[in-house]
Each structure stands twice: as structure tokens, then as C-alpha cells.
């Protein structure tokens, strides 16, 4: 069992109506997406009205580089990493999204292979 992990999130998923939308950082290209902690629906930016992407054949690829967003070294983004995400900062400053800190639902493969 992996330890409880901090996850920054911005509200809840409109598809499953339960999962927090965590900020997930691709371990390969460092792209950050919004990932539902419950149903794996993914949004590339703050436009949550847009249709989400879903996992395919058990894989959840990064929309930019196609690396797995689930497998290590992808992970929940840290506060510092989020500072660099322009679309996120704009949405927060514009009052569109509110950043909160919580505990992630799922075991994170990245954390099992020793955190950086």
C-alpha cells in the first residue's frame, strides 16, 4: 500500500459527479491535465465544458506525448509545478477555477518507486 498522497484539485467531475479533478503531470513531457480521480475522464485545460478524453484499452495517454498518465513517472503535480501552468493560473486568477488541496483516492505508481 502506498502512503496517502497530496493531490491538488479543482472541483469535481461532471461525468461521474463524484471524482475530484486532480492536476496530473505527465512524467515525460511535463504537461499538466485535469484528471478525474474516479472515472479517469481527462481535460487538457480549464475548458471543462469541452468533451473529456477517456482511457482507451486500459491506457490513459497524455494528450500531448501519449505517455501514460497513470504509470510512473507521471504523478499528481506539486504546488510549485502548478505555478508554471499558464492556463491554470489564468483560470484561477479569473475566478474560473479554485485550487484546493486534498488526498488522492488511488495508489500512485510514481510514489511506489520512491518520490523524487
Amino acid at each position, binding site marked *: 500500500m502506498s502512503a*496517502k498522497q497530496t493531490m491538488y484539485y479543482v472541483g469535481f467531475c461532471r461525468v461521474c459527479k*463524484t471524482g475530484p479533478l486532480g492536476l496530473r503531470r505527465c512524467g515525460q513531457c511535463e504537461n499538466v491535465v485535469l484528471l478525474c480521480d474516479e472515472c*479517469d475522464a481527462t481535460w487538457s485545460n480549464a475548458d471543462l465544458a469541452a468533451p473529456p478524453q*477517456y482511457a482507451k484499452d*486500459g491506457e490513459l495517454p497524455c494528450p500531448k506525448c501519449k505517455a501514460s498518465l497513470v504509470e510512473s513517472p507521471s504523478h499528481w503535480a506539486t504546488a510549485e509545478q502548478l505555478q508554471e501552468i499558464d492556463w491554470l493560473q489564468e483560470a484561477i486568477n479569473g475566478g474560473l477555477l479554485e485550487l484546493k488541496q486534498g488526498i488522492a*483516492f*488511488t*495508489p500512485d505508481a510514481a510514489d511506489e518507486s520512491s518520490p523524487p
Partner: protein
Amino acid sequence: MRRSNQQTIRLIQGLVRLVRSGRLPVRWLVGLVVLAAAYLLMQPLLVRSLGIDLPGLGDLTGIVSETPATEQQPTEQPKQKKSPAADEINQILRDGSQQTYESPAGLLYRRGSQHGHRLKHLMAHAKDQPDRPGQHGVFDSEQPEEIVAVVDEAYRQAQTGKKVQVEREGERTVYTVDLNRRVGFIGGESGNRRNRPAARHIRLVVEDRNFITAFPYRP
């Protein structure tokens, strides 16, 4: 022996009453007594020599009804058999098998999700996670087979269109099914703040027959 004597006496008394009332001629009575005496004498011998069980006089007259009630055929009990499904479920949950599990209702649980397999993800709803942000639906049962069964029930009911709300989002279909009885409660941060309210709905997310997630829910 003492009891069979009493039975015999009662039998004779009954016969005497019949004679007195005129319903039985005296010579019949004499004949019957002779026959009875002969039977009483012979019975133990016959039992011993033939090895068969012969009734005493009391049995014949029904004065003492010791005949055991015919044994009830034990009704066929549904056996607590360990189903092949249980083995399959265990292989995925315990041994980390990546195989696809097909539920009796036809839902396909495949590998995927951040838990590695959709069945493992489902089982994450067998326990509360009090510090999970928002709501976390928790099934009352902790048994994988029972949880799979209640999800199947919701899926079947959803297909009948009875007490179900259907939403579509791209290739996904989301059912909110009212099962009309308590199936779990709302945990997580928000559920625990509200004293874990009971849930009788299941929210089920599928892509075709592929199971994505399901959990107890309050609409």
C-alpha cells in the same frame, strides 16, 4: 411387556363392550380371543426365527401410535458452492491478474484505471475514505461477489428503464439507478461531515458493456 398386557386388556374390554351392545356375536369374540392368544404366543418366536419385525396387538389396534411420522424429504438447499466467478475475482483482486472479468449480467471489468483493474477500483468503494475530497460512495457489503452482484442488479434494472436516470457523455453512459433499498452510504469528507447518509441509488458509468466505475450515490 407390561405395556403390551395393558394394551391386550384394553382390547378385550373393547371387544366385551361390542358383545354387550350386541354388535359382535359371542362366538366371534371367542374366535378372536383364540386368534389373539395364538398371535401373542407366536409373535416372539416368529420375530426370532424369521428375523422380521411384527407389530404387537397394541400396534394393530392403534391404541398406541408410535409409528414415527414419515420422514420429511429434506428440501433441496441451495449449496454454498464456491463459484468459478469467485475464483476469477480472487485472481484479479489478490493475485493481480489482468484478465477481463465478465459479470453474470454481462458487464466487462477490464484492466485500467489508476487501480490497475476496474474490479480493484470497484473494491475501493467497499471501504470509506474519510479524507477523500467530496463524496465517496461506500457499499454496505465488503464482499467482492456481493458488490459485483448489486452492480449487476443496477445494470439490469437500468436496461429495463425502470427508476433510472440516463446521461450520455461521448461514448460513456452514466446510469443513476434507484434500487429502492439501502445499498450503502456516502462517505468521504463531505459524507462524513453529514453523518454518512444512507444511499439507495447506484451511479454506474459504462462504455458499452465495459465497466468504468460504480458506487452508492445520492442524487
